[in-house]
């Protein structure tokens, strides 16, 4: 009887493990599973990503936020096919980016993903007009002249910069340049559009226009958009904001409800991300306020899990605090006596 139970438990565990592996991110457009990326810079190892999990569904407009050095740009570069992970897996639109050959990667960059950089100089060739810049990816992919002309006109029109078709970058404003850059990124009808701080160099009004273009691309063209941003205005206008901290996803903020007149979505709820190993990152302000460090105590409740600071440690902290208070008081008394 006991042996039969042990075997059945083993079977259940095995099924659960394989089911979890198969189910993670299934059906999603972007799936990052325990993604790791380690750099070697002047002899020092830098762990840019430390087992990041991410799932983005098709058609989403998602923002990625995080402090400098959190791994945002590394993640974006990997998703763009410009870098490869050290460990873990990453799938975009069914393409396993860790296992692609150079030719497959080239096809991926041409037809699956579009990229926009923060600096406009990195997005457009300065000696080509806007239309020629949009035409360039189509030409590289081998499209015919008629198809290229049609697609170029459509994109510029959709993004509201058709009047810039014959202008070179130095003849356009920053916002116009970025919108043309979005058109360039969309030229080959990618499934995913990656934008690395596209509004970083722009004023708020222009940034809003650029973001509007991204929203248009998302809404009208059905492109899944992933935007890395520091701009809180941008964060407030997307339904899902993923925060990355120390190479992992830490929190997600989901917004519900309709947008107000400024486009800002109301009712944001922040969630801590629970990764596949069951780990989650507690917000620093919460842990610091409660003095949580090294270990916490968990208590399972019927509808939640309680996270409590370590009691012994807390007692020690309290004792230290009490001793410090009493010592201070004694000093005060002694000094008062001394004065007296």
């Amino acid at each position: 009887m006991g042996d039969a139970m042990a075997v059945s438990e083993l079977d259940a565990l095995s099924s659960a493990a394989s089911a979890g592996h198969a189910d993670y991110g299934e059906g999603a457009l972007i799936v990052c599973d325990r993604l790791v990326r380690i750099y070697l810079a002047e002899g020092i190892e830098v762990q840019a990503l430390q087992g990041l999990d991410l799932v983005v569904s098709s058609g989403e407009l998602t923002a990625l936020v995080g402090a400098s050095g959190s791994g945002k740009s590394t993640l974006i570069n990997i998703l763009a096919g410009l870098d490869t992970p050290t460990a873990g897996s990453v799938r975009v639109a069914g393409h396993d980016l860790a296992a692609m050959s150079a030719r497959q990667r080239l096809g991926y960059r041409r037809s699956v993903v579009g990229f926009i950089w923060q600096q406009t100089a990195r997005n457009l060739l300065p000696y080509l007009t806007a239309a020629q810049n949009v035409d360039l990816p189509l030409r590289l992919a081998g499209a015919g002249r008629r198809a290229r002309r049609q697609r170029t006109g459509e994109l510029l029109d959709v993004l509201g910069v058709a009047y810039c078709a014959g202008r070179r970058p130095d003849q356009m404003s920053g916002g116009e340049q970025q919108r043309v850059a979005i058109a360039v990124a969309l030229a080959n009808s990618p499934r995913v559009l990656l934008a690395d701080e596209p509004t970083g160099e722009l004023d708020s009004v222009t940034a809003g226009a650029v973001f509007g273009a991204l929203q248009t691309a998302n809404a009208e063209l059905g492109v899944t958009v992933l935007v890395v941003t520091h701009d809180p205005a941008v964060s407030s206008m997307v339904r899902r904001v993923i925060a990355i901290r120390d190479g992992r996803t830490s929190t997600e903020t989901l917004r519900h409800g309709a947008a107000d007149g400024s486009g800002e979505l109301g009712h944001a709820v922040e969630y801590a991300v629970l990764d596949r190993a069951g780990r989650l990152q507690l917000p620093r302000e919460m842990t610091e306020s409660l003095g949580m460090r090294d270990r916490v105590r968990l208590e399972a409740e019927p509808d939640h899990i309680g996270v409590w600071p370590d009691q012994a440690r807390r007692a020690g902290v309290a004792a230290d605090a009490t001793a410090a208070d009493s010592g201070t008081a004694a000093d005060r008394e002694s000094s008062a006596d001394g004065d007296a």
Partner: protein
Amino acid sequence: MTSLLGRLTGMRLVAAAALALLTLGAVFAATAAPRKALATTAQTLRQTVAAAPSLSQSITVSAPWSSIESSLNFGVSGSQGNKLLTGNQISEITTQLHGDLNHGPVHLAPAAADWMSMTSPDATALSKLPGSGVAPVKFEVSYRQPFSQDLRLVAGRLPGPVPPAPRRVTPNGNVFPVNGAGPQLYFYPLIDVVVTSQTAARFSLHPGSRIVVSGPESAFSASRPITLEVTGIVAPRDPSATFWTADGTVLTPQLEVLSPTVYYWAAGVLVGASELAAVQQDFASGGLAAQWLFPLSIGSSGGVQAQPLDDALTRLSTQTPALTGDVAPVAADVTVTPNLLPALGPFLATEQAVDTLLWLLYVSLAAACLVVFLLTARMIALRRSAELAIRRARGASLRQIAAATALGTALACGPAAVIGAVLAVLVVPGPAPGGGWWGPAGVLVIAICAPPAFAGWQQRLPRHRPRRRSARLVTGWGRLVAEATAIAAAVAGLVVFRQQGTQPGTGVNLYTSAAPVLIAIPAVIVVLRVYPLLLRAALLGAARRAGAPAFVGLARAARTRLTPALPAFALVLALSVAAFAGMVRTAVSSGDVRASWQASGADATISASVVQTPGAVMDPAALRAAEAVPGVTHAAAVWVDTWTTGFGQQVTGIVVDPATYAALVAATQTYPHVPAGLLKTGPAGSAVPVLASPLAAAELISGATLTTQSAVDPVPVRVAGVLSGTPALPAGGAFVIIPLSAVHSNATPPVPVGFNKLLLAGAGIDTARVTAIVRDMIPGGGVTFRSDILNSLTTAPLQHGTFDLFALALAVAAGLGIAVMLLELALGAAEREATLARLAVMGLGEGQRARVVVLEVLPAVVAAAVAGWACALALPSIVAPAIDLSVFTGSSAAVVLSPGAASVGWPLAALAVVAVAALAIEIRPGQRGRVAASLRVGE
């Protein structure tokens, strides 16, 4: 970058222009250098051949007549049953041989210059001829075809084309026709001949003269007299033509002295077509020699190369000519002798020596040029990296990246290469050597393909190179092993170079021609090892002192990796080549001067007789006039004659006034001083002290007495000193210098010893005045000026052309050095500008800014200069044993290659000037306005 050129090439105007200029220069040099080398050697070859006797400039095909007669299946039958060659057959053989010999590198003169001869053995004149003295006269009877084109009639008539009716002459001289039967056949043959004016004058011949000679014996008859009837006197149109020089006795009888008691006159007579059959019939039994002579035409082929010509001529001498038709059997009987081969041998050695020298320059400059092109390609790829990154991100494949880059470089380099090639062809007209277009083509390929290769490497994705491995390679044992291997390979190459270079006939080895490159490899490796250590020490010193510029500048210099060794390598090579070219020019120029002294002995040498007539002396008035010519600082009259020792050994005696002669020798170069005190004569009857050459000293063992055929007493001598050479006898040999006071005339009445040579020394001798004195006062005399000899050496095609190539090499080396400097500045410009902008924000002043730039850039330049200087100093000692520079001077004396101060110093000075100029541009005032722009760009 919005200009049309920028859009088309994808490069900034400056970068495109720099690449175009570099390509133009490299293609020009790669095209012009081989053409110039070919033109130089071809001109020298033509000059060498032209100086050779006319017979050397021909190919001789010879065969015994008897072999030809037995090979031919038909022909006119002679009276003795043998077959006779006809004129048509001879013409046919001549034509076919001409066609067979005239192909490939061998160019013959037009067929009209070919001629054939059929010459009899010597036939002794049976009667005594006037003018022959007691010596017998032997005549060659030589048939020539064609006959009259090389001679002109002076008297009488030329033989006609149609043979006369067969004739015989009786012993008493009556001539009667032969009617084919009867006893007339036993009388003597009569052959019509012509002789030259010289022969006629020697033997008092005239038209109608008859010479009876003994004919050859045969199997059918004993020797019988043959009468040669002179029908005409002729003179050569060109005495130097092979028609006359092939057998000099035909032109001028010569007295052949076999021994004091055996001598005879050798002379020749010519017969034409009319007597062809008669010559064969009458002389065949003695052995007729048939010979065809085909003059060469070296000057007609502008791009003639000695080695292919030598190979072709050698092949001709070993192969059987290809004759066809009825005369085909004759091919097996003939011997082909290219008479030019003996003259080509020394020339080939000269050419190889020059090629060895030139290939040293070619390979070194090619290596430096390759480095510069790689640096340029790297710069272009870096400058276009942002644009190419966009393309790559938008889906461009590496092939498309490379194609876009290649299109840009092709648009910049293609026209430049064409212009460079056209310029080279215009500057150096003439044919190009075989394979001469590979160099320029290689340059163009590298110029176009290097930037795309760099761009493709740069843009390859994903960027996950394992830096740990490269770091280990750079700093660890891997680098040490690589450096040790490189040094070992370089040393091995140098050893091979020296061994092969000193062995004749080894040709030019491409690997070993890279001696300057091989020397530069260890130098650069050592510099790269020592340079960071020295820089670190300087940095420590700067850190302790107050002030920022030195510390910042040296810190940036220490951080720069010297882009591993490429710029330093290119600079070292450029310096080595420049210094080496300078050393060679200096050595050859010194060698020319030395050779001119060795050829002339003094600044001017006057001889009493150009043809060295025995007994010719100069008038004392002429001597005084010559010594008084403006510019003459020293003069010494000498008497040079042949003296004989008691044992019959001959030495050249040079009778001089010791004091004046010693003073003159001291004013010359290359000759050992004459210690006049050693020539002080002792009491009468004692042996006269003389100075002797080593050869003469060995012969003049103690107690020798010298005698001469001139009217002076014998002179007992003893060797007081040995001299290796003396100006009075530049050719050297066995000579003795005899004091004038020891030579006494034994003529009656006694006459003062006359001088037959006057040596003059002085830097600015009035050569026109000296020439006039010789012309007017020394009949038959001659003068040789050292300046003329020196001029002929310096303007000789070989030296002049080679020095032109050196000048081109110097220009290329200078250009490459400048290009390396500018490229290095350009490659680091962006980072430097950003750093300086940040420092300017912190308060860096203009002067401090300049110091920062200088201290950042200069250490690398100084390091390269030191390495280049070391290579330049080491180069002569390493390559000198394998290089023969005496081929330029034509002298047997060695031309010493040594690192002179000027040769090594001026390239360093030029590098310093270029560095200062480049830095001056970099640190020009007014850069403050760019601070904001630099910082806005960001990283």
